[in-house]
């Protein structure tokens, strides 16, 4: 079989215009990591179950392992690399550190991207709402409680700011 023709993609990643060439069957998580060297986005399960690959696509929280890279054409992608401000962690990141909400860290970029998305649409979530929202972010290390506490603390920080 002949090699599939590569697709030229023009997109925006964390506010910056980016271009890359991808295979038709390449997924966005792979293109972010291997074409654009944005390795903050992790790949765990690659089938939509673990949330390590969470990014925003045109503002919607998605698993980038279940998005074709070519779908990003003309759309805006936000990854973990765009979360921290200049020299300053986002409150979700800061509180994950304070509360030891990470150990190995493989789930953390996805947790941060997902939690930030929640707090932007719901600044004062209940514990249950946080747990429900993050049900698609699997963590093998922390036992979740510390993550939930950190996200609730970050929400409080953001409301006070």
């Amino acid at each position: 079989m002949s090699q599939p023709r590569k697709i030229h993609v023009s997109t925006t990643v964390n506010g910056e215009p980016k271009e890359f060439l991808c295979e038709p069957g390449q997924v966005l998580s792979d293109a972010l990591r291997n074409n654009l060297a944005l390795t903050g986005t992790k790949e765990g399960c690659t089938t939509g179950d673990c949330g390590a690959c969470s990014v925003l696509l045109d503002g919607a929280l998605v698993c980038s392992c279940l998005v074709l890279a070519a779908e990003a054409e003309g759309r805006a992608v936000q990854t973990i690399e765009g979360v921290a401000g200049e020299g300053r962690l986002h409150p979700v990141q800061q509180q994950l550190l304070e509360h030891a909400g990470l150990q190995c860290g493989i789930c953390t970029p996805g947790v941060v991207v997902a939690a930030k998305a929640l707090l932007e649409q719901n600044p004062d979530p209940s514990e249950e709402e946080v747990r429900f929202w993050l049900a698609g972010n699997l963590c093998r290390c922390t036992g979740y409680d510390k993550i939930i506490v950190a996200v609730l603390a970050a929400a409080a920080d953001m409301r006070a700011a």
Partner: protein
Amino acid sequence: MSLAQYSSPPTLAEAMQALAGGTGARPLAGGTDLLVQMKLGLRSPAHVVDLKRIPDLMALTLDDNGLRLGAAVPGAVVTANADIARTWPGFTEALGLIGSSQVQGRCSAGGNLCNASPAADSVPALIASRGVCHIAGPGGERTVAAEDFTTGPGTHCLGDGEILVALQLPLPAPRTADAYLRMIPRTEMDIAIVGAGVSITLDESGVCTDARVAIGAVAPTALLVPEAAAALIGSTLDADSLQAAGAAATAAASPISDKRGTAEYRRKVVAVLVRRAAAIAHSRITEST
């Protein structure tokens, strides 16, 4: 993941052309079924035709004709719409049960229907609320009732080059409400072993004048169960009528046994869920008036 061709046509006509003719092309909505199946080697289309640049597939309108929901609109867009949630709480909750927040960012009601899993969560709710499928194809446009769309596990009524364009939910009659319940072995992120969608209409005196009952995951396709609805119509949804509706659902079910649950268990639980969903729909009407 090996794939020879990807395209994202901006019009229905171009998408139909790409899909027609048995060339091994397959439509893509949110990809939460299709891309997983491709990664697992269960499907290997030669060409993936992304439907999300076609305006009709991504449109959502709510007016006197009810809801017209573009087949590729993501779940998160539907559940964030307070008017839809108020008018069809059961359908909205059913769609919102699919997967995680991340899956909600992509999964569509159209994809849930077209994937044709017997356990698809939004389908019994769609059927209960009298959903109609708008289909476009090389031969023109047609509509199919939601209960007639799926023909078996993984199969549906779409012909060569046909695309599901939108789902229509007619505006409910006054004093009507719907509800959907599912049973899963875990508390979230799991596949239903039983699903039940119910829509109830009451008159001023509290007598049920119309009802629809649909069940999922207990037969090769989601089923409309007119016998269960008949047990409710004319009653005040008293315990005996709910019991009879549940028994009718059990009688209509032909479940399989698998690692999630035995056939016997599913037959029993489907009756419970039909009763409870009818009671929830009932209380939604009485509490809002």
